């Protein structure tokens, strides 16, 4: 009985590890996205890639070959991201990977990518440590300190903030924001009055908010993922906190407004993407993305993540098309590209591999909709 189980296991393993087909008429790149946990961010990211691939292939592909993307799930876990990376590089033989999405997972994969000389482009990993992760690591979103500089400056000058407080999500994204924003506020002469934190998965912030209420403040900054930041601001308002609220780009999604309800009114946050950016490329992208969202009620709606991966895919494809598919050739393109026609702006990369756009977009929620502010 046991021997049969063993044979079954062995055959499953052998079959499963089968060599993936290498079709000569295809160019493959890999993607490691949040497809199970965090699918509300990962699925839009996937759609962005799919839209780009469809466009590129419809226009004849890359040098006549069809572009194919192999998706793997980062499972919000560093070991799973590493396994996904190994599988993509070793079995699918990709040379370019879009992802992972979470900073921790990027940091796990980065040393491997450096050693193996594989280009990885994280669409939205925000940790500053990613800039130093190596020359094969690129980042598709603005580095968090540029976001911090823009938002804190806006807070001081336009919102006339004098006493900010921070309620942050205790993981790399939120904590990174807390550290950077505290520094920026201090440099602007308006040091943070108090800080509290919460964990991903928490929904009850009454303890932290009650504690913050003990000292007067005029700005409540809540960096984190919207599943937590939305209930947080909602509870804050219910508790009678009237201070101006502020968030980072995690709050840039219609779902945030839906979950926070009226509490989202007046909220200031930054975004990597401006839907009203008036270029033909953006219009085409928007139409394609919203067509997908409208078609299925269960589809998460987050144009920002889709926009970032859409741009990154097109950059990678353009790199392969103009310079070649080897990692150093792709790097050669990415390091020197100027004013790439992206939907997130005119793009280039700085010497650390971080994307450069014309600036950070700031938005305010007015009557249940995002309105751009300057």
């Amino acid at each position, binding site marked *: 009985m046991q021997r049969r189980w063993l044979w079954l296991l062995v055959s499953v393993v052998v079959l499963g590890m089968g060599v993936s087909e290498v079709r000569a008429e295809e160019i493959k790149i890999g993607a490691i996205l949040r497809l199970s946990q965090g699918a509300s961010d990962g699925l839009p990211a996937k759609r962005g890639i799919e839209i780009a691939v469809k466009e590129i292939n419809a226009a004849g592909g890359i040098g006549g070959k069809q572009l194919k993307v192999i998706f793997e799930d980062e499972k919000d*876990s560093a070991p799973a991201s590493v396994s996904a990376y190994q599988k993509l590089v070793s079995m699918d033989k990709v040379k370019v990977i879009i992802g992972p999405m979470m900073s921790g997972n990027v940091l796990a994969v980065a040393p491997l990518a450096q050693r193996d000389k594989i280009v990885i482009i994280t669409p939205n990993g925000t940790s500053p440590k990613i800039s130093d992760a190596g020359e094969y690591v690129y980042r598709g979103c603005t580095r968090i300190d540029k976001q911090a500089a823009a938002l804190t400056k806006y807070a001081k000058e336009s919102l006339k903030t004098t006493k900010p407080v921070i309620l942050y999500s205790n993981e790399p994204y939120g904590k*990174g924001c807390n550290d950077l924003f505290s520094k920026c506020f201090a440099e602007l002469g308006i040091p943070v009055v108090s800080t509290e934190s919460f964990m991903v998965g928490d929904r009850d912030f009454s303890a932290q908010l009650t504690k913050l209420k003990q000292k007067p403040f005029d700005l409540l900054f809540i960096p984190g993922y919207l599943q937590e930041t939305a209930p947080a601001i909602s509870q804050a308002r219910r508790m009678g906190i009237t201070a101006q609220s502020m968030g980072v780009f995690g709050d840039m999604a219609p779902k945030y407004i839906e979950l926070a309800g009226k509490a989202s009114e007046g909220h200031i946050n930054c975004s990597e993407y401006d839907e009203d950016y008036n270029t033909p490329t953006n219009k085409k992208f928007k139409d394609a993305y919203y067509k997908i969202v409208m078609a299925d009620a269960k589809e998460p709606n987050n144009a920002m993540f889709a926009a970032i991966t859409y741009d990154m895919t097109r950059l990678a494809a353009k790199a392969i098309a103009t310079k070649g598919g080897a990692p150093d050739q792709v790097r050669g393109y990415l390091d020197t590209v100027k004013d790439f026609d992206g939907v997130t702006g005119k793009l280039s990369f700085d010497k650390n591999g971080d994307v450069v756009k014309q600036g950070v977009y700031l938005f305010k929620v007015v009557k249940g909709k995002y309105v751009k502010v300057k």
Partner: protein
Amino acid sequence: MSVYILHVLIMVAIFAVLALSLNISVGFAGLVSLGHAAFFGIGAYTSGLIMIKGLSFPVAFGSAGIITALLGLALALPALRVKDDYLAIVTLGFGIIVSITFMNLEITGGPDGLVGIPPVTLWGNPLYSKPGFLLLCGVVLGFMIASMYTLKNSKIGRAWAAIRDNDVTASFMGINIYGYKTLAIVVSAFWAGLAGSLYAHYTAYINPHTFGLHTSIMILSMVVLGGIGSIPGALLGAALLTVLPEVLRPLADYQDIIYGGLLVAMMVFRPQGIMGRFKITEIFGRAR
């Protein structure tokens, strides 16, 4: 393809050590632990930090085992005082407290984790090659399997079996239940710490997420699916649960459903696990 397979094999080896270590407390001594990943993490962070500070791998590796064992002792002292049925929840609580601590200490890098952990260095040479690392894991695993069989057939192992069967009877026979149970937890923690050290230096990056409840459940599942108390069973369980997610990649959306369903089905149809030869009641005595 071979690099990928080597990677998977290395993960299997590391988790095999981990599963075997849990098998000591659950399988040999009958103590349920839902917080075993905490020991894995303590070993990983200890070893990583020691090598980051510049000390050698043997020091880091050994310290990982010893420090984790000491923390196992610290857990055992209060935990074993509670009613047996509560041990599961206390170990679960311990696991959660430890992972939240990892998340909040400066020294462990907080939520960002430890970046840039140095690789294993043997006689001055860093071990980057995968086959080499697999060999190292194989050697550790080999030692472990040998010591497992020795333990199982020793006086200690027999005392554990008696306690597992029925601890009231065992105490009447003059066995120091408390002492032997503590020993089981300490030894189990020691080996888990060693597994953690291997893991830290292989992946060069660790963060608190990896050492949480989800991983503890996975390790317990490996032991249970393979067969509680069975040494080849723990190996098989580790192999199965490490390889299956890789093999099931095309079914990525359904992986968790399959995992959950598999656990339920196994318990209903074959609770003694794949390699378990006895009915579970024979291993654990009559139900309380």
